[in-house]
C-alpha cells in the first residue's frame, strides 16, 4: 500500500452525530468544500492524521471492528484511501503540495 497523509487544510468534525470533512477556502477547486463520511471512515481519517502507517492501520481496523479476515480489512482500507484520494483529501506522505491557488 502506498503511504498517504491527510491534506493540511482539511478538518474532520462531528456535529449531531454526522461526520464531516470540511476544507479550507483556498482548497476550493481541489477538494469538495464539505463531504459527509461514515463513522468508520472518520476512524480511518483520525488514524491517518496521527501518522499511522498501512500496517498499523490494518491492525487498528482489525481491533476496532473485530474483523479477522486480513483481505476484508485490506479491502476496507483500500476503498477508503481510493475514495479520499479521488477527492484530493489525501496527499502522498513526504510530499506537501501546499495550497491549490498559491
Amino acid at each position: 500500500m502506498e503511504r498517504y497523509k491527510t491534506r493540511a487544510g482539511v478538518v474532520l468534525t462531528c456535529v449531531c452525530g454526522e461526520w464531516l470533512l470540511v476544507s479550507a477556502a483556498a482548497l476550493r477547486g481541489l477538494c469538495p468544500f464539505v463531504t459527509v463520511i461514515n463513522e468508520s471512515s472518520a476512524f480511518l481519517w483520525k488514524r491517518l492524521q496521527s501518522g499511522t502507517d498501512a500496517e498499523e492501520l490494518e491492525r487498528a481496523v482489525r481491533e476496532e471492528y473485530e474483523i479477522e479476515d486480513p483481505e476484508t480489512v485490506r479491502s476496507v482500507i483500500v476503498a477508503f484511501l481510493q475514495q479520499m484520494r479521488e477527492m484530493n483529501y489525501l496527499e502522498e506522505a513526504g510530499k506537501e503540495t501546499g495550497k491549490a491557488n498559491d
Partner: protein
Amino acid sequence: MIDETKKLLLDVLSCAIRGKQAPITDQLKKKRMALFQLAMEHHVLPLVVDTLYHGEEADPTMRGMAGQVRSLVIAQAQRTADFQLLLQRFGQKGLWPVVVKGLVCRSLYPEPELRPSVDEDLLIRPEDFSVYDAAMKAAGFRVEQGNEDEDYEIVYLHPESDFCIELHTSLFPEESEAYGDCARYFDGAIDRAVDLTVEGVSLRTLAPTDHLLFLICHAYKHLLHGGVGIRQLCDMELMIERFGKDLDWGYIRKSCDGLSLSVFTAALFRIGEKHLGFAMPEAFVDIDVDESALLEDILSGGLYGVVDVDRAHSSTMTLEAVSAARDGRRSKGALHSVFLPLEAMRGNYPYLRSCPWLLPAAWVQRIFRYLARKDRSDPVNPLRSVQIAHERIDLLKQYRIIR
C-alpha cells in the same frame, strides 16, 4: 441564586465539555428555547445542541436546531482549515508565530469545532512585525484595524472568506491604566513557547503556565470591558485538566496576587468546582470566596457582556474606576463616560490619530452623534448604564480587584 435556565446551561455544558450526552428531562423540555437563547448569547450553542441531540429520537425542533448548528460548525471548521493552511504557509517560510487561545483552546474540547472562535490570535516579536505583515498580505489578508506604530494588536481580514487574524506584538497594551500591568507577566513568553501538534498540524503556543495565566488575565480584561463569558471559564478548566502536571501553580498564584486577581480567580475556580464539576486547584483553596455574584454577572452578560447595550456602555466607568484605583487617584465617575480619553476615542474618530488636539471637537461630535441617532430601536439608557456601572464596581470591590 441563579435562575432555572442558567442552571440548565451549566448542567448541559458540564456534559458537553466532557463529550457526554445530556439527559432530556421535563424541565429541560419546558425551558429548551430559553436555554438555546442563553447558549447563543454565550456562543456555546453548538456545544449545547450537540449534547442534547439524541439522533433518531430528536423531535422537529431539535432537528431544526441541529441544522442551524451544523452550519455554524461547518463555518468554524472552515476557519480552522484556513488557519491550518496559514500556519503551514508560515512554517514553509520559517515563521513560527505563537498561537494564543483559539485553536489551542478548541483542541481541549472533545469535539473542537463545536467551540466557536471568531478569530485567531498570533503573538510575534515587535521586530518581526514587517515580516509577518508581508506574509499576511501575501496570503491575501488586508489590515482591517490598527497600525503598527500605535497598537499592540493589528486585525487582518481575508476579504473572500472573512477569516480574521489578530497579530499581537504584546499580549496586553502596556499603556492601559486598568490592565496594562498584565503585560509584564508575559515578558519572555515567546522564548518559553512550546511545540504542540493539533489535528496533525505542528505549531508553537504559549507554555501551559503562561497560557493559563493569560486566560485568567484575559478574563479579567473582559470583566472590566463588560463581562467574562462562561466559555472562557470552560477553556481555563479544560486547560488545567489537560496540562495540570505542567502548570507552575506557585507562579500563577504569585502573579494573581501581584495583580490583585487572586480572589477573582478563586471565584472563577469555585464556579468550576460547584457548577461544572472540576476540582478546585490547591493553590487557591485557602481563599474563602462566595462565587455567586460573579456567576450571576457572567451568566447575565452573555459572551464578554455585550448582550446588553447599557452594560456595554457601563464599561467606560468600570475601566475608569480600576484605572483610578491602580493610579491611586479619585475616579472621575460618570463624567468619564462622556469625556472619554484619547486612546478610547481614536477607534471611532480616526482623525485623532494624526490630530490628537482635536479631542474636544471629537467629544462634541460624539455628543451630537448620540443626540441625532435615528436608530432608536436599542437606545442607550444613560441612567441605567450608570446604575449598572455602580453595581459592577461593587462587584470589583467584592472580589478585591479594587478596594
